[in-house]
């Protein structure tokens, strides 16, 4: 690996994904069904990031009691649902992770 070549390449592909679509999509009219489907982008992407992080340990489904991220994640979800307060969700989610880790240790 060449360090700066790697960083330069990462910059090119990341900007190359973000900018052209942003600049062009408004100018080329999107078909209505595609435009309407875009409202599912944020929930679908966030879920696809979150679920493997909390449900999998070393690539396997882990429902055991000592999977602290799973229980902290479920608690964070409940807090977010009841309170709709992002900061509270983050704080209680992290406290739950540490509390659960401490309990099972």
């Amino acid at each position, binding site marked *: 690996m060449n360090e700066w070549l790697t960083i330069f390449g990462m910059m090119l592909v990341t900007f190359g994904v973000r900018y052209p679509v942003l600049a062009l999509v*408004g100018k080329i009219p999107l078909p209505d069904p595609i435009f309407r489907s875009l409202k599912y*982008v944020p929930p679908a992407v966030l879920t696809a990031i979150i679920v493997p992080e909390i449900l999998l340990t070393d690539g396997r489904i882990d429902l055991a009691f000592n999977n602290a991220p799973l229980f902290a994640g479920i608690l964070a979800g409940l807090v977010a649902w009841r309170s709709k307060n992002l900061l509270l969700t983050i704080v209680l989610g992290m406290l739950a992770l540490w509390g659960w880790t401490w309990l099972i240790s």
Partner: protein
Amino acid sequence: MQLTNIEPTRRGEFWAGAKATIPLIVGAIPFGIIFGALAVRSGFSPAGAAGMSFFVFAGSSQFIATSLAAGGATTLFIVLTTFVVNLRHALYSATLGPYVKHLPQRWLLPLGFWLTDESFVVAVQRYRAEDSSPYKHWFFLGSAVFMYANWNLCTWIGIFTGQAIPPEWGLEFAMVVTFIGMLVPLIIGRPTLVAVFVAGVTAVLANNLPNRLGLLVAAMLGILAGVLAERFFGEPDNE
């Protein structure tokens, strides 16, 4: 997220955007510090670690790049993986594009560079708010500038102090709980619930695909499921 009573001026929108992003910044702080620490531990020079946050600015792909680098991956493989992991930003850009089409290039270039998961979620909610403020791109800018400044600052903190943080604190989990807090309020109506369910199941089943391709497959299937469910159940209630 406070999106009402925003003063419809450039300054009012900019600061409202920054303010709406504060909780997301709190979640990004430990993530940025850990990135700085891990990058140095994985063989990047301090300048390279700082440079990656400055020039690439894409948190999860930066993490993946450092773990690949630690495992001895080639430049080409790291760049290709970054491309796949960041393809989701094309979906974000496609969502925001219609709202920013009137803006000149001097706006589109920086907003494109600064587009992240966090600023996307904040900006799209602002654009979808009922009021007709002509300066909503200043809200987007305020969110993006603060995310960027914070990410770079935290990377530096991580480079210089991160070795002192014990890994068992699990600080990287802060990003997961932040995303949970962003996700839950978005789940309104049965079509969205179906989209989330399908995306979650697919993400687990496709987790072993190379280059984190499973993320993209899961997102695409989730979106498709949402669209099909909308035909079946009708429009979500929030529209």
